[in-house]
């Protein structure tokens, strides 16, 4: 067996170890390279900046704990920004397995920003039906969510004063890790009920949402951990996303190095075999 052949059949545990170290070391010894802000992320930020105080900001936390590392920092940054702008924040989820996590997330950020439940923010919880919930909210928000997550009547929440349906929402962002997510919010929500929509998603999903972004169907897109890091930089409050960028840089470069090596060995083997 030639060297190239041996290298192509390298024990995968060596690769696992390499990726493990590339993740761990930058987390222990951060470098803090500068992060360039993309126009996609700035789109979401600028729109929230342009909203007048007490506008209604709807955040749909459409992910479960599997996507927590990428989408949780996005949600935290968005909530911090919205609370800082004194917007009325209404949150919900279309993913039943993400309900508990979403509740903790909203409560944690609201507490940190000194906001009061019912007056400044609310968590509506989860309702079955996926895209049917979006249409129902477009028709009558109180029919889709008669009560919030804690069981209080949504009609009695001051944060929802003057809000009857999605048409009364100032800005809506869906942080989606799949279906239902950003695409459903556009197709079943924005297209019919005409509210401004932004999106956030995992890194692997982002390329699929670019057609919506380029056509103006969504006015901004926060893609993966990188998007979250950009948003943290924009609001000037660095968190887990910025901390994770060094690890992501190292793993990306490690994978690129592995791909280049594998191709070098492959071509060398092909040359040997004629």
């Amino acid at each position, binding site marked *: 067996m030639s060297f190239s052949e041996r290298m192509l059949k390298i024990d995968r545990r060596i690769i696992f170890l390499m990726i493990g170290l590339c993740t761990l070391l930058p987390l222990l010894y951060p470098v803090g390279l500068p992060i360039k802000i993309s126009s996609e992320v700035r789109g979401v930020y600028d729109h929230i900046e342009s909203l007048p105080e007490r506008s209604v900001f709807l955040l749909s936390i459409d992910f479960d704990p599997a996507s*927590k590392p990428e989408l949780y920092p996005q949600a935290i940054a968005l909530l911090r920004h919205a609370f800082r702008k004194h917007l009325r924040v209404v949150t919900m989820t279309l993913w039943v397995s993400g309900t508990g996590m979403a509740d903790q997330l909203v409560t944690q950020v609201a507490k940190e920003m000194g906001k009061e439940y019912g007056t400044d923010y609310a968590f509506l919880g989860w309702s079955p039906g996926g895209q049917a919930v979006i249409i129902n909210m477009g028709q009558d928000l109180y029919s889709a969510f008669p009560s919030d997550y804690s069981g209080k009547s949504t009609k009695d929440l001051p944060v929802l004063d003057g809000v009857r349906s999605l048409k009364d929402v100032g800005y809506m962002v869906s942080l989606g890790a799949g279906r239902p997510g950003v695409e459903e919010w556009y197709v079943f929500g924005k297209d019919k009920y005409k509210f401004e929509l932004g999106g956030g998603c995992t890194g692997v999903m982002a390329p699929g949402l*670019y057609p919506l972004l380029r056509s103006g169907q969504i006015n901004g897109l926060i893609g993966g951990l990188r998007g979250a890091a950009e948003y943290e930089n924009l609001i000037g409050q660095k968190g887990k996303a910025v901390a994770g960028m060094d690890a992501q840089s190292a793993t990306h470069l490690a994978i*690129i190095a592995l791909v280049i090596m594998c*191709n070098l060995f492959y071509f060398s083997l092909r040359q040997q075999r004629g």
Partner: protein
Amino acid sequence: MIFLRRQLPLLITLVTGLLFAAQYYVPHPASEQMLTSATKWLQIVGGFALILGVTSLFHQHAVKIRRQEAGWGYSLVLYVGMLGTIAVGLWTNGKESVEGTMTAFGWVYNYMMVPLQGTMFAILAFFIASAAYRSFRAKSREAAVLLVAAVIVMMGRVPLGEYLIPLSGDVSSWILNVLNSSVRRAILIGVSLGAVALSFKIIFGVERSYLGGGKE
């Protein structure tokens, strides 16, 4: 009986299909009220679908355990996990915390479900790296183009990549915004036209496989 099994479902599909396709273009209050009612039904049906799904899952795994098929131990774990979670969920009224104190249901969610799902997703990074090393080879011209594009996008999406090759960020952005968007849009249009054609076939009873028993 044939009327109930075949003709009635086809008639319901035809009427509701045409009605709701037309509803989108009619902003009359009666039409909007009809949509509100229908979506309420959909939400209720969605709730029942959840029960149906859980029942079906229970049944499937019960059969596996009874017959002691390969991997029946995993089915047992699923049974214990699901029944245990349902029991604590009912006991705590579905609340993860009461007055700031974590309930048993909250404990299951926070210390079992969250780390398990997180671990499953995190493991992907290791497998992707291993799979990339083994299979991402420039075996053809098309594969080489894909490989170069992937390397540029991977470089351009991280600060270190942009630091080493400053142009990679802009090139990566161009690939995503222009090449990727146009191809995705073409695929989306194709898929959407296919969905419209299939919807018409279902509404007019040409496609009947959803009734079960194949084509007649």
